[in-house]
């Protein structure tokens, strides 16, 4: 019987190619050319003024907490039915 997983990352055509290109570049750290291209694409498509990629959505959610200067005692409203991030 063919097993159907709940999830499997779909890979289009150019991921491996881009990865190989990035891996062979002289600089591997963040904010290189692929990151800049992703920022530009998302900013243009979504019409937002500034876009910053992060290691995860969780980490991106941690940034507003810092940007809003939240400190012990401040209250935040979130749905109960959500991820634990």
């Amino acid at each position: 019987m063919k097993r159907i997983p709940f999830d499997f990352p779909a890979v289009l055509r150019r991921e491996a190619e881009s990865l190989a290109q990035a891996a062979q570049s002289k600089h591997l750290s963040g904010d290189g050319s692929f990151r800049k291209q992703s920022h530009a694409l998302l900013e243009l498509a979504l019409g937002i003024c500034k876009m910053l990629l992060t290691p995860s959505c969780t980490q991106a959610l941690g940034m507003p907490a810092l940007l809003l200067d939240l400190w012990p005692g401040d209250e935040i409203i979130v749905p109960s039915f959500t991820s634990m991030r």
Partner: protein
Amino acid sequence: MNQSADSHIPFNRSSLRGRELEYISQTITIGQIAGDQTFSKKCHALLEQVLGVQRTMVTTSCTHALEMCALLLDIQPGDEVIVPSFTFVSTANAFALRGAKIIFADIRPDTLNLDEKLLEGLISSRTKAVVPMHYAGVGCEMDVIGEIAARHGLSVVEDNAHGLFGKFRDRWLGTFGCLAAQSFHETKNITCGEGGALLINDARLTERAEIIREKGTNRSRFFRGQVDKYSWVDIGSSYVMSDVLAAFLYAQLEVWQTIQAQRQRIWKYYDQHLRDWAQERGIGCPVVPAHCEQSCHMYYLVMPSLEKRQAFISFLKSRGILSVFHYVPLHLSPMGERMGGRKGDCPITEDRSDRLVRLPFYNSLSTDDQDKVIRAIQEFHV
């Protein structure tokens, strides 16, 4: 510290050391691009086996591994954490994020590591931890630091960003503190571009580390079948490295001895050709005490003055060679000053920060290119 594109010899350059591309394509083929899958596990097993640490967890960065340490030690607002002033911001920031007051220690004039003789004088009733950073991969005086910390009930967290595969008194760096943080940033001996690892030497911290790393959930226990569903049990974040990066990292880790041998060759070559020249001109070279087996992360010179250092960097740049300075004293940064740092607090840090210059150093640096760097340096009029 930016590297201009037209530099003939850059300060740093990434290079593939083995099967990086092959392993990356494997992650895509088998559909394992999230974290903690085959390649992350291989990295964990290798590091645990070689270093003999209780538990390793690869993370998104060394900064994040340090943030995990601050969470694991339950650092609270008002707690004090002692860090060297001469280090990267993350050593301090990880703890400042939890509201800790950072206490800046000066460094030893020889190894540029946290000066263990000053440590006791900086401890107060609020001190919770000390974070020695093994500068350039030369070990801090861990026996003295460990003894003082134990006597005052402080935790020791090693910032081992530079020191993977270095040793202090025949023991691996990263195995002295209850926790240690590794960096796999592109400038490091072994890299995956952006990445890090948490080393856990105190087994009591392992379970909570798994929870903090998995967004404050007991997901790891769920996957081991220890609980029937996973839930939000603690604060935490996502510190898990993607297996795509872990695949890259593993390809480098599995040839770590070859990489370390290359680094050693590069370091020794600089040292053989520059030490006498430097000493005759009042220029300092790295000091590696006999009981330290360094990781060969960098080669630096300490010029006679700030002006000479700047002139030296410009001179090399005019020859197409990129050399760079290093840490700016943390206690004099805007954040450091807000925490009470004042000029004169850490005189050795202030002095060395002005005078230190790092030479090009990367795994694929050829002897020919090193000869060019050495020749250019010897033409500089001090």
